């Protein structure tokens, strides 16, 4: 069957089966920027924004997201916060293999939209659904802090 989704602000008709997760539907329809990790909601590699909230797309049945707004990492590079986060991750050395990075940036973006001046504890909490097996978390947390400072014009 085919259903309409609003992906990165554009209406798209996607092919899906009623038992499929949103992760699979997005990837099968070309959105491979959404990474497939654990498929159990633990790793956060498949993070997207659903109606503005960061959620793991592997824990959502696609049919429940029909006609709703989905934002993937691809759309964030068109935003100021997205660009700053991307550059801060590079500058802080927060990227190694890069597999977790789209999910990390989605979670960080969601946090900064809600709390422009997050504390370190709030950053850790916002990223508690994202796992990185390469760098550890210190540089990732530094990158989010740096992004918040740049966005607030305090640097």
């Amino acid at each position, binding site marked *: 069957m085919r259903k309409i989704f609003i992906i990165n602000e554009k209406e798209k008709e996607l092919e899906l*089966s*009623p*038992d499929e*997760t949103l992760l699979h539907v997005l990837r099968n329809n070309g959105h491979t920027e959404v990474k497939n990790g654990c498929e*159990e*909601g*633990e790793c*956060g590699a498949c*993070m997207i924004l*659903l109606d503005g*909230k*960061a*959620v*793991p797309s*592997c*824990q*959502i*049945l696609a*049919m*429940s997201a029909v006609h709703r707004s989905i934002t993937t990492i691809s759309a964030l590079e068109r935003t100021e916060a997205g660009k700053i986060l991307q550059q801060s991750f590079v500058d802080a050395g927060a990227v190694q293999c890069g597999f977790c990075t789209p999910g990390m940036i989605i*979670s960080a973006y969601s946090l900064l939209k809600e709390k422009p001046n997050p504390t370190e504890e709030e950053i850790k*909490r*916002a*990223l*508690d*659904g994202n796992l990185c097996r390469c760098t550890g978390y210190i540089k990732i947390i530094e990158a989010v802090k740096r992004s918040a400072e740049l966005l607030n014009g305090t640097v």
Partner: protein
Amino acid sequence: MLKKDLSWHFPGSPEEAAALVRGNKGYQYHAGGTGILRNKSSAAAGFVDLSQTCLEGVHFSQEKIEIGSMTNFTDTAGGESPSSSCPMALISRAAGTAASTPLRHRITVGGSIADSPPWSDLTAVLTAAEAEVFIISRDGKEQALPFIDYYHQKKDLRESLITKITLPKEKGNVYCYKRFTRVVMDYQLFSLALIGTKKQNKINDISCSATGGKKVFISLDEVRDFLTGKDIDPDMLKTAAEKVPFDFSDSPGFSAEYKFHLFKTLLKDGLFEFAGIGEEDI
């Protein structure tokens, strides 16, 4: 594995949703969906999605707090003025520490009550807070029942639709919620909820509930009876924490005896926090 030919329905009211499940064999409610995906319910013939049934939100009235069953854990944790009511503060605390930030955007109060999944089990807090569960039962009638009764009849109420829970607004003046996990982001091995009234140096009343025992729910009536009406004293709290029944079973990484000791430590810490006793006071 879920069936390939599942049908999906999007009713506009709770009554319509309940009628769909009642009238179609194998239909299940779909709230946040996290429980369905973990359980991969192969028996489901169709899902009745509750997102358009207007069952979301936290509302305060003069005596009660209402939490709609489709309210997700993020919104429950940020419920209106949680500090003004101990039961609401207790539920907010439990909802705000369950699972992970992104999963809390999906997990709903109703789904957690219906399934008691290990990552978001509210059994202890809803019992301690004396919550009431409102359902549309199999025969289409609206019904309210104390959470503990709902919990014990859960198998028979499988096809009922939870519409909301209510909490007493005024209950106790102090509360404590604790969960034991190996790391912060993990399923809880135990959860503990305490709520009661403390005046000057005396515990007037206390409700104690916990999950994680052999029967999931651990009854702490002996602890409650021992503490009610007593003056606060560290030795007395330590004695109270020893009054836990041995009701634990072996599980991977934890023997029953080890769990028993861990739980007593968690309870002792909880009672000290409830009583306002810090390390420096011991």
